[in-house]
């Protein structure tokens, strides 16, 4: 049974982030950077190489507040795995509780696919795309801060701001030429 954003009760003063990315992409480095940040609540980071999560231990697993997909533009396998994993995530997460992090987006000479495929993936799931790097500490910290900002919203620590509100204000409800 796939987990949904409302299938479990939240724990008191806790936010949980799930990092999904293939092996060796740097999930633990990012997790380290996330945990180093000072937060007034306790932050938990879980990692997975792919979704769906195994059925065992699903009882003891805390509620996941925010899902981060890590993918590397220079690595074909990480892209195809992310595509497969994103399909498995419950649709309630794509209402402001998930985001895609693209690594190595700037090194175009090593790209394995067109960037339009990656932006298309994010657009199809209507989720934000962050470009970043895990190479040096400052960049990691910067990326961690951006992620934490979104996590705070999705776990309800920002007063009166819900992920749905962010999602709703993302679009300008106007007539636009078709994409």
């Amino acid at each position: 049974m796939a987990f949904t954003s409302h299938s479990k009760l939240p724990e008191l003063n806790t936010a949980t982030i799930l990092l999904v990315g293939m092996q060796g992409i740097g999930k633990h480095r990012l997790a380290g950077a996330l945990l180093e940040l000072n937060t007034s609540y306790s932050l938990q980071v879980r990692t997975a190489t792919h979704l769906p999560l195994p059925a065992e231990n699903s009882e003891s697993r805390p509620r996941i507040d925010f899902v981060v997909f890590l993918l590397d533009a220079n690595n074909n396998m990480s892209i195809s795995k992310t595509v497969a994993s994103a399909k498995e995530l419950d649709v309630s997460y794509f209402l402001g509780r998930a985001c895609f992090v693209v690594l190595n987006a700037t090194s175009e000479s090593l790209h394995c696919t067109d960037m339009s495929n990656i932006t298309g993936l994010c657009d199809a799931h209507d989720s934000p795309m962050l470009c970043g790097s895990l190479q040096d500490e400052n960049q990691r910290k910067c990326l961690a801060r951006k992620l934490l900002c979104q996590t705070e919203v999705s776990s309800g620590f920002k007063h009166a701001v819900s992920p749905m509100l962010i999602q709703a204000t993302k679009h300008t409800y106007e007539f636009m030429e078709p994409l």
Partner: protein
Amino acid sequence: MTSAVVYKVRHVRRHQYFSWAESQLKWQGKAWPTRRHTPYTKTPKSRRLHGKSSKLERTPVLPAGDTHSLKQLTSKTWHVYQVTPLNNFQHSAAALRKYSRHLSAALQAESHKGIGVDLESEIGDRAIFSIYKGLATSPDDPEAVELTIKAKGRSRVSARIICNAILCSVGSEHRDELAERLTMLPVLLVKGTAAVTRYVISWLQAQFDCHIRKMTFNPMALVWMVSMWAGISTGDKSKTVELLYTLPKAVEGLSRITLTIDATDAKTLWDSVHDEESVDFTADEVTAFIKALEAHFFHHFKIHLAALTLSRIGTPIVYIGSEGRLKILSEKAIHAVLQHITELVRDNFCRAS
């Protein structure tokens, strides 16, 4: 009331862009919508295959006895550079003589500067510009230009060639009009020592007001090229299809993996992937071809090649490295390869502008 209207509008929009995207690009059997504002352009869905019934507008006419001149392009390692349109470049014999004179003078002046300091970086003293016939295939192509730089060795009497460069444009269709004074010769092939290459490039940049940059091929481009040309056999048994993958630095004790396939096997696979009637090679065919190779490799070695970086490819007709090195093996393939590179350079320009 308003919300109902809004809902309807969004619904229509989604429907429109999904159907549009479907026709635009397919990736792993799935169609993505595309964003409007990104600095990236996408690779075309299919590319022309040279060979059977290519859209080659006219076969280049070679003067008799000149066939050997194309042969000198083959079996040598060239460095590929991309060149923005040349300003005020003329093809007339008088103009070429003038350029030769200017560059020779510049080279002599430069080499006097460095005398006794750096004996290794000899940059020659005589430059010759000439028309290189037989490369241009479409009526829009300007004739290719060859640049030879000779040096008189200290002890030797006869001059020897220390640098060879060819500026060319093969099979380009003019998608946009160029200004009167500009000449589009987007591909520069260079073979020579680093010092003289650097000097010649800076001279060309200053003289013709252009920008010359090393051409690199990303794994996507390499995958395209190996899939397109793997099935073109030259009949030579010793020629193989080769893919060289580099491993991430974190892996110790192993730096690269070379996957070599017999040309006949590659041809069999290629035939099963490619639609024989079609003159185009599509993105789906590229994916299918490379997926098949990766699956085969994984079956035997339990290594996912998709997770590694492709850095060099070899086919029976050409070797290309990601850092911009090119070696054409077959004379027949010269036009196909250079046309593809011309297209890639032009795509790069579209990307940048």
